């Protein structure tokens, strides 16, 4: 049952929403014991919301009719603020922080009757591709198909719970350099990262502000489109929010996508892919052709050659300024007040930030120091512009571009441990391109190899989320 069908049954009282949500919370707790998908389960808020909806139904409140997410369980990546619910972005330095306001996306979900069930686990502040870089004292989420393996990151908890939930549920994820598509690929679900600015970032705990995008993850393309439909649109509280008309994403689904032109990214198939991944993605491409789409190879040199370097310079530069505010004043973790402010701030940050967070703060601070700024931060910004130009040129000819989402099958935790930081970053090589260019991209599950899911990546031109979902809907429901 997809989300929209479920909402109908809630509306008609066929399903008692309060009873349902109690069961959902119970299931989440159970799943969480084995898989660590939640940092916080917001049972109080969820049950309160369920009661409100039940009362509205009882009172025949007319507003109920138009609510797009009525009674649907929605999980929220921990880096997205929910008023009154601990929101830490997976970091001990924000332990105990309960936001004073809802992120704009959370407000929109609640206005449409969506029920917030909890905050999903992630790499600390989004710093990773495997969800193993969780904050001090946090637990790593495990792959739903093999608990020895990663569910991808940084929206790992979101990907896992989308796959594991046997109740209607959609997840709010966030991507800076691939953090929606990577876990969607490893967990075998749809994950849509929209155009930069399409969805408001207000209330998102920042990683790299010029890269951060909130998106939706669902078991079906319908669910994924439905949540995007709710959260997309202009927001005056986010200065980078786009003031462009919003499409009706749902109306495009199941319409076929004949006559669309698809570009197969040459460089994404040249080297470094697991053969299992490549063969499944090729099957996906065959399916596009069967559906009448014209597929043609295209060379895109810059994103794969320079994408990771550009991404890490810009993302860490921005992150190192964003994380400066966490210093044990006003909110979050605190330590015994001793010494001068510098000593105190250092102590708080030393004790409460994880290794990867410290690494990225140091890299980012270095990249913006005078003397190095021009060589790193400024140069990265220039190459970023060139990458965007290369994509734009491709989209003059193609409706969407195709590559694997991640070149490898979900790796074992024991193998991840052996990776150097650079090898670790390589997992995102196919994803950083669309992310630094602010292009919408969709992970489409294309099947299983060795019992593990494989994802295909569709990348579209700015604001062409609708096209991607239309193509994705060819792949139907995965369950």
């Amino acid at each position, binding site marked *: 049952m997809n989300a929209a069908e479920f909402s109908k049954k809630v509306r008609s009282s066929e399903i008692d929403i309060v009873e349902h949500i109690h069961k959902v919370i119970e299931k989440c707790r159970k799943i969480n014991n084995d898989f660590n998908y939640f940092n916080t389960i917001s049972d109080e808020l969820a049950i309160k919301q369920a009661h409100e909806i039940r009362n509205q139904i009882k009172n025949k409140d007319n507003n109920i009719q138009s609510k797009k997410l009525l009674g649907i369980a929605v999980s929220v990546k921990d880096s997205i*603020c929910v008023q009154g619910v601990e929101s830490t972005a997976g970091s001990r330095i924000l332990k105990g922080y309960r936001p004073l306001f809802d992120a704009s996306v959370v407000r929109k979900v609640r206005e449409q009757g969506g029920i917030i069930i909890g905050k999903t686990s992630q790499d600390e502040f989004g710093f990773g591709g495997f969800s193993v870089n969780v904050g001090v004292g946090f637990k790593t989420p495990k792959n739903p198909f093999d608990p020895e393996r990663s569910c991808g990151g940084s929206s790992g908890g979101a990907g896992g719970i989308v796959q594991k939930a046997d109740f209607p549920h959609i997840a709010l994820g966030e991507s800076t350099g691939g953090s929606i598509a990577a876990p969607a690929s490893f967990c075998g679900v749809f994950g849509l990262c929209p155009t930069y600015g399409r969805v408001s970032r207000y209330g998102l705990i920042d990683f790299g502000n010029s890269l951060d995008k909130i998106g939706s993850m669902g078991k079906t393309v319908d669910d994924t489109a439905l949540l995007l439909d709710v959260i997309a649109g202009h927001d005056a509280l986010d200065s980078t929010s786009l003031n462009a008309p919003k499409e009706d994403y749902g109306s495009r689904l199941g319409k076929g996508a004949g006559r669309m032109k698809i570009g197969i990214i040459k460089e994404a198939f040249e080297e470094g892919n697991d053969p299992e991944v490549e063969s499944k993605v090729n099957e996906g491409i065959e399916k596009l052709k069967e559906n009448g789409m014209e597929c043609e190879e295209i060379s895109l040199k810059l994103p794969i050659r320079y994408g990771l370097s550009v991404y890490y310079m810009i993302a860490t530069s921005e992150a190192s300024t964003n994380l400066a505010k966490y210093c044990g004043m*006003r909110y979050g973790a605190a330590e015994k007040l001793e010494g001068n402010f510098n000593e105190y701030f250092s102590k708080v940050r030393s004790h409460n930030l994880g290794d990867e967070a410290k690494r990225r703060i140091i890299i980012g601070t270095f990249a913006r120091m005078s003397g190095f700024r021009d060589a790193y931060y400024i140069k990265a910004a220039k190459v970023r512009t060139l990458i965007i130009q290369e994509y734009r040129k491709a989209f003059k000819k193609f409706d969407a571009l195709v590559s694997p989402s991640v070149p490898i099958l979900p790796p074992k935790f024991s193998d991840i441990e052996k990776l150097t930081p650079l090898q670790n970053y390589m997992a995102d090589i196919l994803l950083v391109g669309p992310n630094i260019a602010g292009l919408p991209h969709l992970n489409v599950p294309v099947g299983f190899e060795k019992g593990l899911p494989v994802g295909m990546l569709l990348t579209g031109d700015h604001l062409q989320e609708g096209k991607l979902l239309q193509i994705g809907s060819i792949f139907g429901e995965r369950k």
Partner: protein
Amino acid sequence: MSSFTSDIVIGLEVHVELNTKTKLFCSCPTKGNEEPNTRVCPVCLGHPGSKPVLNRKAVEFALKLCTALNSKISSELVFSRKSYFYPDMSKNYQITQYEIPLGAGGALSLKEGREIALKRVHMEEDPASLVHSSGMQESGCVLVDYNRSGNPLIEIVTEPCLASPEEARDFMKQLITVLSYLEIFDENHGIIKADANVSVRESGYVRVEVKNITGFREIERALSYEVVRQKSEAGHGRKLAHETRSWDSARGITFALRKKEAEEDYGYIIDPDLVISEIGSEWIENIRNEMPELAQDKVRKFIEKYKIGREDAQILASEKALAEMFEKVAGAVDPELAAKWLRRELLRVLNYSRKSLDEVGITEKHMIDLLRLVQEKKITDNVASRLLEKLVENAFDIVSYVKKEALEAVSDADVLEKYCIEAIKENPVAVEDYRKGEAKSLNFIVGQVMRKTKGKAAPKEVNEIILRILNESQ
């Protein structure tokens, strides 16, 4: 080595608080409740997830200043993050302008007409205020009040071309005049602060930065102290340190904060939360059209149109309210008379009562009524001055008051002559002294007539009548 020619070289960085209703990046009020941490929100407290939204009004104010200072307005509005850790910073970075300031270049004229070149004009947010409950040195802890956090500031940076502490003071004064003409600064409650770079010839122009100087009176004190200190150090053959010092107003001294071995590294990046936006030519055109006449325009106009002296014109133009009053009064009575009375008498009584023009109820109607009576010789200067003093206390209608209190000048020649004859008769000794050649004694007799008329006679006229009578009776 150095291209400086003057004995003393001073450059200023002046920070001015703009008087917008709300803060630079959130909608918290800039004024109001003084209870600590009441005018705050997630944005100005730097809470996770909050995002800045630019206050367009503050940009408009800053654009007005750029226009007034002839500073070249950038085509793009760009904000940067200046990173450093400090307890008064809500985010441990300050949103400011770095790469591309709002205004580049420009100039401001000192009173004597010398133009002081500007480097740049840019906008930034104010940090929170730190409260040391028992003084900066003794307090074991510091309290932070975020009410000020995020208030809009504009920074004006001069080239190092001020040649004395007096010039620095005058620069600040001229700047405040411009700000108040533009109505973008609250002269009574707003904060204007300066950091100054100072060096002297004797040391080979070793640059010292003096921070934390508030207001234009302080700037002359602080810089005078610093110049004397530097000259004396150099005079004793000691090498001056390239350092940052702080001005302690209470003790009247500057003291060393830190050595400047290397420039601080603020790791600037362009703030990715604020989109770079174009400053359209239409916006700038609108600002230009809305610009009020500035003090320097007024001076020119006063000299040309009303034919008054440069000094009078400058003093009248130095305060917007006074300049506007002068224009109205000069349109109704003789401009020279208006200039004399506003510049001398009105400022004298205001100074004496320690009040500014907008704090008293004196309007241009009062001044026009008063000066018409003076011009038509219906009241004497003496009476007019007394009326002005009374007006500072509380306002009243001049014409009816003069009638009611019978203050009209005694101008009937026969009546005046009667008083003069009386005075001569009553003071034979003075008359005798005058005849012996003591000119002062004549003044005494005139004074007696003034007393009899309660000041309502014109002294010059009385003087003439007495002289005539004394000459006739010789």
